[in-house]
């Protein structure tokens, strides 16, 4: 049970099924036992309505390599049913430290830059529930702090976040709900 404005921290050793749990939360993987409810309804019965409220960020960046950063972000925003305002993408990219790279092909970016572009999807998303799989991995200290601030702002607006992480990262001054997975 996760309330609006709270975040769930899924902890556990490697290979214990954190990613699988997140994929179940998204409705990608079937739930073996138990149920996942959203607004008191099982997510299987809501389908697209639930997905409209959802933004998932997995291990994969979901960026098409032979398109530019801008094209990629416009497309993922379109999948969420919105078109960004002119200039919005530029400011988000600048905020994530990859400013001015909008017209570059994704394949010309470094791994770290790709990850930042992928994370900037969050800022463009209208979803209330963020599901993040290891978002802090391979980020420098500044990046981690900025992402934590972004999540904190999301929570402050009444959003929800479920995330996994190796390291403990404070998100604003909001204590997490903990979920420790054991084998």
């Amino acid at each position, binding site marked *: 049970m996760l309330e609006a404005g709270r975040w769930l921290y899924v902890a556990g050793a490697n290979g214990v099924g954190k990613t699988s749990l997140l994929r179940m939360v998204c409705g*990608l993987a079937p739930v073996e036992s138990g149920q996942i409810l959203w607004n008191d309804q099982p997510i299987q019965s809501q389908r697209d309505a639930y997905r409209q409220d959802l933004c998932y960020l997995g291990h994969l960046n979901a960026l098409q*390599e*032979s398109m530019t950063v801008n094209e990629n972000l416009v497309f993922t925003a379109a999948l969420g049913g919105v078109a960004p305002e002119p200039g919005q993408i530029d400011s988000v990219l600048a905020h994530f430290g990859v400013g001015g790279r909008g017209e570059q092909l994704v394949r010309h970016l470094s791994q770290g830059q790709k990850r930042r572009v992928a994370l900037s999807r969050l800022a463009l998303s209208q979803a209330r529930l963020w599901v993040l799989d290891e978002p802090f991995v391979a980020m420098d200290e500044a990046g981690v702090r900025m992402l934590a601030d972004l999540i904190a702002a999301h929570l402050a607006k009444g959003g929800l976040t479920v995330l996994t992480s190796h390291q403990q990262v404070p998100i604003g001054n909001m204590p997490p709900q903990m979920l420790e997975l054991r084998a």
Partner: protein
Amino acid sequence: MKKLGLASVMLALLRREFAVALRQKGEVLTPLVFFVVIASLFPLGVGPESALLLRMAPGVLWVSALLAAMLSLQRLFATDYIDGSLEQMALSGTPLGLLVVAKALSHFLLSGLPLVLMAPVLGLQFGLDGRALGILMLTLLLGTPTLSLIGSIGAALTLGVRGAGVLLSLLILPLYIPVLIFGAGAVEADAAGLGFGGHLSLLAALLVLSAFFAPLATTTALRISLE
């Protein structure tokens, strides 16, 4: 931020597919060249006798078109599956069925339509006359979207599977047989004075049927592949 209608989302996907195709021209051109090469091999195999070639032409061109479609279908979802975009599509608020239709449409526009335009050139090699060429193009125009739609099922089923390319052909080619029969049969029926209207309406019926059922099956298959 501006809200987008479902049609605009489909359009955005189409635009994306075109942008990718434009930067990876080889992926679009290779199946086309393959089509030309396969069709040109037949006269070398059976000899240059014009009466025989004329009779074979519709069948040969149609079989080549099927094989060329196979070649491009392998990549319909594969890159999106590997880089995670497919996951995002499956998790978006847009119904996945619509995205699948847009994908199939882009496959038709990028690989089916060029075949339609290329066919008359190859038809001339086989000595088809203007009327036969017209009918052939018409059947290809009605038939290749069906190939894209049915093929998308196979492409979705074989995602991330060992030997996906060969497997895809084994799964999908038998399902293409009705399209092949009515497509290639139209020219022949017209030559025999039977008219080709029946063939065309049957091809259209297949198209409607596959437009209705194939996205359903593809969506199910994609969700299974993503589990």
